[in-house]
């Protein structure tokens, strides 16, 4: 089989088709929300919400096994949505209060989320393999039903996140000014929190709950190295998210490596490359340009450095103006 036939085989596999659609949607949506989280200095929020969502997954299982629905985990995603939304709203409320004791409360909530989830999944009759698939992703098990959920939520996140980007930017950039403009600061903060929760649940299948935050944050970290504006950062981060998700998934089609970890390692590799390469490129571009604004000052100094004097100095003892 030559290369072209291999690509056709990849694209004609229904399993791979579903996985690719999910990867593109999640890869595009997660960094959009991540940009607002980074701007709000809440880069780790997705991580905490992911921890809490595991308890939601387990509660969904437990309810499913009581109600004897089949398959047993069909209520896992709705459970994760509910737990993630509740968790992110609590995080936002703690942040709004700005209490130092809130930090400790959040830590307890996150560890409680993981421990409770692991315990409850066992009680509901889940196996270690089930647990691992939620923690580290299982894109190869995406069913058509899952895909519809993922697609609908990803489109919702993209429409709200991009449509309200100026208002969400205003609140994330300068909350005090947003309040003094009469913007509904609390409602908009809650919109960011709920978007983060929904992103966590749709990314769960692709990269797993423990790596969800990476897909939201690392593309933003790469984009902000090379962009100058907020809009460009968001657009570029979204493109990087799609790129690493698709490439990571395709790698796992031919090699037996876990997709979630592959996607995250690719993104971090991109970050390292950009972080090393950008200063070299930027230095070459900035050579010969004085970064200081040309403003008068009122200190008197002897012009000891001829490069600092705008006019040729007539002799010793001239001022450095």
């Amino acid at each position: 089989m030559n290369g072209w036939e291999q690509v056709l085989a990849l694209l004609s596999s229904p399993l791979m088709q579903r996985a690719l659609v999910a990867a593109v949607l999640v890869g595009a949506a997660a960094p959009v929300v991540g940009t607002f989280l980074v701007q709000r200095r809440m880069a780790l929020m997705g991580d905490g919400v992911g921890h809490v969502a595991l308890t939601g997954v387990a509660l969904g299982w437990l309810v499913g096994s009581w109600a004897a629905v089949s398959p047993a985990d069909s209520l896992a995603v709705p459970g994760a949505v509910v737990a993630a939304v509740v968790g992110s709203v609590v995080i936002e409320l703690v942040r709004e209060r700005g209490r130092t004791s809130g930090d400790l409360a959040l830590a307890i909530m996150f560890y409680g989320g993981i421990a409770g989830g692991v315990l409850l999944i066992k009680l509901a009759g889940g196996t270690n393999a089930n647990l691992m698939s939620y923690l580290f992703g299982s894109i190869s098990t995406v069913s058509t039903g899952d895909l519809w959920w993922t697609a609908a939520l990803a489109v919702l996140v993209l429409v709200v996140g991009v449509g309200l980007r100026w208002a969400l930017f205003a609140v994330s950039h300068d909350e005090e000014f947003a309040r003094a403009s009469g913007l509904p600061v609390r409602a908009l903060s809650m919109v960011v929190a709920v978007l983060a929760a929904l992103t966590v649940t749709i990314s769960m299948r692709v990269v797993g709950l423990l790596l969800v935050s990476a897909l939201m944050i690392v593309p933003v970290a790469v984009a902000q190295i090379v962009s100058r504006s907020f809009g460009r950062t968001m657009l570029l981060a979204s493109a990087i998210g799609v790129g690493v998700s698709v490439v990571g998934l395709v790698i796992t089609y031919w090699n037996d490596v876990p997709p979630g970890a592959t996607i995250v390692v690719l993104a971090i590799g991109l970050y390292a490359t950009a972080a090393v390469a950008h200063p070299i490129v930027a230095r070459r571009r900035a050579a010969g340009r004085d970064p200081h604004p040309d403003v008068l000052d009122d200190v008197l100094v002897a012009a000891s450095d001829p490069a600092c004097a705008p006019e040729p100095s007539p002799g010793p003892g001239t001022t450095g103006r």
Partner: protein
Amino acid sequence: MNAIEADGVQVTLGGQPIVRGVDLTVPTRQVLALLGANGSGKSTLVRALLGVVPHVAGSIRLLGAPLGPDVPWQRVGYVPQRMAAAGGVPTTALEVVVSGMLHGRRLRPPRDRRARALAALDALGVADLQDRRVQELSGGQQQRVLIARALVREPALLVLDEPTSGIDLPTQGTFVDALSRLRDAGTTVVVVLHEIGPFAPLIDRSVVLRHGRVVHDGPPPPARGEHGDVDHDHTHPHADPEPPTDGPDLTLEVTP
């Protein structure tokens, strides 16, 4: 109509009473300076008047409406003391100014946002900074961007919180010019100042706070001691003294 009507405003932060029963009525077209030492509660008072921090007692009306969603927020401009230290996402000066077009009834900027934001930056002489990251700008440049963000919505009431702290003299002059143009156009201005300095000719009325209470309301009060001299300026733009020379400045003379 009054631009600001505040009655018995009290603000408590962290259990401490910061503003204690302030009554303040600012008629439209007035330029009011709010003076006081560091920690006298002047910044907290203006932040409470705009709803940035909550007040525990008293009533506040802005441009005729009680503080809340009914205030015509598109006509209120606020210039905070300094640029918010937000997260690391790069943001251009133009984007910061565009965010000034949003208010309680407008969550998306208008279509002509770019032209309007550029005009506001140009009015403060910083149109060339439009595509620069605000994180990389100097303090004075950031302050101009913040003023442009407040002016882009063409406010009827402009509130500035120490616009000149840490700003060099030429830039302060630009701010005074910008404010006098606004006053001539009929804008009500409330400016929090540490010292009146270059704003003196603009100020119609001054209110002095001490320990969270109004202790003076009327014409600008005389300052203490030598600070009250007509020509005394705290920022001291001296005439150039003898410039230092590069030659030896230490002479050794033996006197019998």
